[in-house]
C-alpha cells in the first residue's frame, strides 16, 4: 500500500539530501534581508495593528518563505518531467495518480516547513516572541499543502520554463507582495482589496499571524484554507491525468 506515495517521496528526499546544505543556505538568505531591511531599519519604532512592526513582519515572512518553498517544487517538477523524463517512471508504475500528487505535495510541505523552522530561528535571534498554538500547526500544514498542490498543477499544465516563469511573474510574485505579508491588506485601495481577498495567501497569512501573535483567529478563514486545499488537490489530480491524454 502507498507504494506510489512512498516512492515519490523517497525520490524527492534522496535528491534533496544531496543538495540540502546549498538549498537551506540559499533559502535562508532572502528572509534575513527582509528582516534587516524592513524589520530592523525601516520598521524600527513603527507599530502596525498594535504590534511592533518586526512582530507583524515575522509571520508574513513565514507564509512568504514557506510558500516559495512549497510552490517552488513546480520548478523542479518541470525540469524532471520535460528534461529528464523522470515523471514517466511514475506513470508506468502500478500506482495511482493521487499517490503521485500526495507524494509530491508531501515533499513540498517538507520544504515549506523547513523554511518555517528557519524563520523561527530568526525570530529567536531578533528577540521576537511567538505563541505556538494548535491552530498555527493546522494553518501551516494547510498553507504548505495547498501551495504545493498549486505548484504541481502549474508544473503539469505548462509546457516549458518560459511559461512557468510567466506564471511566477504575473501570479505568484504579486500575490506574495499584496496578500498582507508586509503590511495589513486593509490599508490597500478598494480595488486591490477585492483582488487580494480572492487569494489564499491572504487568509493563511491572517490566520497564521493571529495565531502566532495572540490575536483572534477567524475560523471561517481556516475553513476557506481547507476549501482552497481541496480545490488545488483536485486541480493537481486533474492536471496529472491530463498528461496521459
Amino acid at each position, binding site marked *: 500500500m502507498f*507504494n*506510489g506515495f*512512498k*516512492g515519490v517521496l*523517497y*525520490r524527492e528526499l*534522496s*535528491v534533496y539530501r*544531496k*543538495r540540502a546544505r546549498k538549498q537551506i543556505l540559499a533559502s535562508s538568505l532572502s528572509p534575513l534581508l527582509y528582516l534587516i531591511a524592513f524589520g530592523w531599519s525601516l520598521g524600527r519604532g513603527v507599530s502596525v495593528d498594535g504590534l511592533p512592526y518586526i512582530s507583524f513582519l515575522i509571520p508574513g515572512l513565514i507564509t512568504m518563505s514557506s510558500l516559495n518553498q512549497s510552490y517552488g517544487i513546480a520548478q523542479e517538477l518541470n525540469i*524532471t518531467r520535460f528534461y*529528464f*523524463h*523522470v*515523471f*514517466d*517512471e*511514475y*506513470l*508506468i*508504475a*502500478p*500506482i*495511482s495518480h493521487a499517490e503521485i500528487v500526495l507524494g509530491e505535495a508531501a515533499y513540498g510541505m517538507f520544504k515549506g516547513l523547513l523554511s518555517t523552522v528557519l524563520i523561527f530561528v530568526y525570530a529567536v535571534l531578533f528577540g521576537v516572541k511567538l505563541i505556538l498554538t494548535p491552530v498555527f500547526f493546522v494553518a501551516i500544514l494547510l498553507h504548505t499543502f495547498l501551495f504545493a498542490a498549486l505548484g504541481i498543477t502549474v508544473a503539469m499544465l505548462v509546457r516549458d520554463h518560459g511559461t512557468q516563469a510567466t506564471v511566477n511573474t504575473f501570479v505568484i510574485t504579486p500575490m506574495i507582495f499584496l496578500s498582507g505579508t508586509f503590511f495589513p491588506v486593509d490599508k490597500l485601495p478598494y480595488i486591490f482589496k477585492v483582488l487580494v481577498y480572492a487569494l489564499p495567501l491572504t487568509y493563511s497569512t491572517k490566520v497564521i499571524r493571529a495565531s502566532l501573535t495572540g490575536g483572534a483567529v477567524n475560523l471561517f478563514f481556516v475553513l476557506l484554507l481547507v476549501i482552497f486545499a481541496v480545490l488545488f488537490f483536485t486541480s493537481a489530480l486533474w492536471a496529472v491525468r491530463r498528461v*496521459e*491524454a
Partner: protein
Amino acid sequence: MKASMSEGAAALSVEGLVKRFGKRKALRGISFRVEGGDFIGLLGPNGAGKTTTIKILTGLIKPTEGGVRYYGRDFAAHPREAKRFIGMVPQQSNLDRDLTAYENLYLHTILHGIPKPARKERIEEALEFAGLTEYRDRQVKTFSGGMRRRLVIVRALLHEPRILFLDEPTVGLDPQIRRTLWDLILKVNQVKGTAILLTTHYIEEAEKLCGRVLIINKGRIIAEGPPDDLKREIGRYVLEIFLEDRIEEEFFPSRDEALERLKECDHSCKVREVTLEDVFLRLTGRRINV
C-alpha cells in the same frame, strides 16, 4: 492475478489502434498479438508510429480509438493490474541523474511494490546482470550512454515483467556497445523467458534479434512475419545491376537462377543475399537509415 486472466488469451493483443495528435494521424489502425516468450520487432522509419505504439501499450498516452488487452483483460479498464507485468525501456533514459545506480533501482522496487526483504538481493542481482556492480554508488550523471542503457534495461526487469518493451534500445550507441546490449536483451528473452517487443529503425538489429517482425509505415503495419519468411516472399537472392543513373534490382528464389541471369547482364552487376532492408524497400519504396 492469475485467476483474472483468461486461459489461452494472448499475452498482449492489440486491436485497431488509432492515435490522432490534433489533425495528424500517427496511427491508422494497428492490430497484432504477442504470445508469451515471443521476440518481436516493430520496424519502421522515423515517424512511422513506433514510439506512439509503445507509449500506448505502456499507458503513457491513451489511444484515440482501439483497445489493448493483456492476457485477455482490457488495459484501459485495469491499468494497474497490467502494469505489474509489463516493463518499459524508453528511448530516452529516464533515470534520475542525481540518484546513484542503486537508488534508481531502489526507487523502482518501491514503486512496483517489491517487498522490502527481497529488494536488496534483487537490486544486487540486477547490477550484476548489467555488469554495473562496481558503479552502484555512483550518480547516474557520471555514466556513459551504454551504462545508462544497461541500467534502464535491468531496472525495467526488477519486478520480473512478462513482457518487456524496448523503444530504440541501441540508438546512438557505438557498435561494440550495441553488441553487448543485444547479448543482454537476448539473455533476457532466452534465460528469463520474457516476451520482448522492440522498436528499431536499424534493420540488421531486427534481423539479428527478432523471431518475428512487424513492418510499420505511416501508422500502418504493412507486413509481418519471421524475417526469413518475409525475405523468401520476395526471393532469396538479388541481382543488382548498376546502371548509369540508378541501381536496378531483380529478385530470384535461388542463387543459381540469379547467376544465370548475371551471365546475360552487360552492365556491371552483383549477386547477393536478400536482406530485410530489400523487403522494406520493396514495401515502402523509400530507403531508411543507410
